[in-house]
């Protein structure tokens, strides 16, 4: 069978029954020093002002991090500072503020290149978020060849009969853009099924790859519903053997895993800032530079051109080619601050990391953060399982602290309302994954999604509130 551990992208199916020692991603055991960094990560909770809010008279227990994460004070301060002291449009200006703003914005790009361990800073496209990143790629591959700049080999438009593989666990944002691309190009979308445990069916994946010609594999790094972490490195390796390119939806992964695009081997990786403790309305599309250079621009207008005449336009180099119009400057700066925050998280908390030190710091931060989250996940699963009538959906080999469940006799919407009255924030519904709901055989679920700043006490409050709902609606 397949080896499912792939460097920093994977989380071990770790068990904590052995007492104090915890298995790290690289297989080594946690030492007392690492326990310190775990404590440092836990202390990070104090950096998030909203976590001390009262909801319906109760302290907020925020278990909806897969929808959006909260923002540390340093990110809030950074955005405030930009608007208060540095605000200006970027590029093409000669005055002091515009030059400064340009520098800060481009520095943010460097920080994000470090965050994903890109090959070069020009591979970082700032946009509105993960959805826009995926649409940008899907739209390019559905565009006619004459709009492409250097189509060649794999990096060329889709044509009639080409196959786009998505998975059964995709969020609508990594499914609908491909349906549209297929409709425009004559390609077809096929789904990689999932197993009953909630993992991708890798045998089926291999079989599907043999269908000719699979051009694109679009898959999520981690499920927003059942928390499955997909083995991107393996998926990419197999896809490349069949001359397909790999587009990864990183929306859920970025708050939990140290992303290393060089190690993952994907061709494109899209994510949103607001799911990794940064602002809303900003995200990143990372793509291999040669790919981005070949592709047609997504949106057009100011800022993305080299020369414009009434008849014809030549485009700027990447990344400017993909950043038409005034970008979300404050958002990019806030997002870079979130990346710096994560780098500093387990490293003494002595202020945000400098860009050149970010990469190793990010790795140690995420290693400690993973230990914290795996403990929370283990606790949550252990506490939820004995609740009468409650069923956790999916038991993936590698799971983020994202858990979906159903409760006999209590619809998720009613459960969500009762939990809210207790100050416990969860998400209910189909989580923008209607095909996955069908596969799981439920119309909707209740989802508890954790971040490193959640606590064992909050998990206990979730369980108490679920039990209250059970007695309120009459125990089944």
């Amino acid at each position, binding site marked *: 069978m397949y080896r499912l551990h792939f460097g920093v992208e994977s989380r071990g199916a770790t068990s904590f029954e052995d007492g104090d020692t915890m298995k790290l991603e690289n297989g080594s055991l946690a030492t007392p020093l690492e326990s310190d960094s775990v404590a440092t990560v836990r202390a990070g909770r104090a950096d998030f002002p909203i976590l001390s809010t009262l909801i319906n008279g109760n302290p907020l227990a925020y278990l909806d991090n897969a929808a959006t994460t909260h923002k540390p004070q340093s990110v809030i301060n950074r955005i405030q500072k930009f608007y208060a002291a540095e605000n200006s449009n970027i590029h093409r200006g000669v005055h002091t503020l515009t030059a400064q703003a340009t520098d800060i914005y481009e520095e943010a790009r460097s920080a994000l290149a470090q965050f994903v361990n890109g090959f070069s800073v020009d591979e970082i496209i700032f946009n509105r978020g993960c959805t826009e990143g995926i649409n940008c790629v899907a739209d390019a591959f559905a565009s006619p060849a004459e709009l492409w700049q250097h189509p060649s080999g794999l990096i060329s438009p889709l044509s009639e009969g080409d196959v786009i593989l998505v998975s059964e666990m995709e969020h609508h944002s990594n499914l609908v853009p491909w349906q549209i691309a297929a409709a425009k190009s004559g390609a077809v979308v096929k789904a990689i099924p999932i197993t009953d445990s909630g993992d991708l069916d890798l045998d089926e994946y291999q079989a599907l790859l043999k269908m000719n010609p699979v051009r694109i594999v679009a898959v999520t790094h981690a499920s927003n519903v059942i928390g499955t972490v997909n083995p991107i490195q393996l998926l990419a390796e197999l896809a490349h053997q069949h001359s397909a390119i790999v587009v990864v939806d990183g929306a859920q992964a970025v708050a939990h895993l140290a992303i290393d695009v060089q190690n993952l081997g994907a061709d494109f990786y899209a994510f949103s800032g607001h799911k990794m403790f940064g602002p809303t309305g900003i995200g990143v599309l990372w793509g291999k530079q040669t790919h981005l250079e070949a592709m047609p621009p997504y949106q057009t207008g100011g800022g993305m051109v080299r020369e414009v005449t009434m008849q014809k336009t030549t485009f700027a180099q990447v990344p400017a080619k993909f950043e038409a119009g005034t970008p979300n400057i404050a958002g990019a700066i806030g997002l870079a601050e979130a990346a710096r925050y994560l780098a500093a998280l387990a490293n003494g908390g002595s202020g945000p990391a400098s860009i050149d030190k970010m990469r190793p710091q990010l790795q140690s931060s995420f290693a400690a953060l993973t230990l914290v989250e795996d403990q929370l996940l283990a606790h949550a699963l252990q506490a939820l399982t004995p609740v009468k009538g409650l069923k956790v959906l999916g038991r993936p080999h590698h799971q983020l602290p994202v858990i979906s469940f159903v409760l006999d006799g209590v*619809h*998720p*919407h*009613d459960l969500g*309302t009762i939990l809210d*009255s207790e100050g416990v924030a969860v998400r209910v*519904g189909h989580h923008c994954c209607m095909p996955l709901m069908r596969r799981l055989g439920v*119309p*909707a679920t209740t989802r508890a999604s954790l971040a490193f700043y959640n606590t064992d006490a909050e998990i206990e409050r979730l369980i108490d509130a679920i039990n209250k709902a059970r007695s309120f609606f009459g125990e089944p």
Partner: protein
Amino acid sequence: MSLDPTDLYKEVILDHNRWPRNRGRLEEFNRSSSGFNPLCGDQIALTLNVSQNQIEDIKFDAQGCAMTVASASIMTEAVKGRTVDDALKLFDAFHDCISGKLPPESLDDSEEYYALLGVRALPVRIKCVMLAWHALHDALSENET
């Protein structure tokens, strides 16, 4: 602000959720409609028998939360036997009370549907309550099937 679940889930609503009235599908019907809430996936299907402008029978089939099911159950009991015009008038009054255009006192507080007005305090759940009522409106506004 504090949310007390019993303000929303009044006893009558829990009762209709546990033991829904008029649930199922009429074997013979001449009006039907369906409702779907894309935000949460809740679904409802209504079948009605309307004869000489009067709702002789009505049943609902629903997959949804307690508010959706209870509201559908209460609605079917409230309109069964009414004339179409009367049922549409009730729809208008109920809709305007839920949306805050009319004060709650515009509805008869001895009727069970009055209990559904508790949702006014929780706007995110109004769609659940209105799903069956909109389906009723659709069924009565269309021509015979």
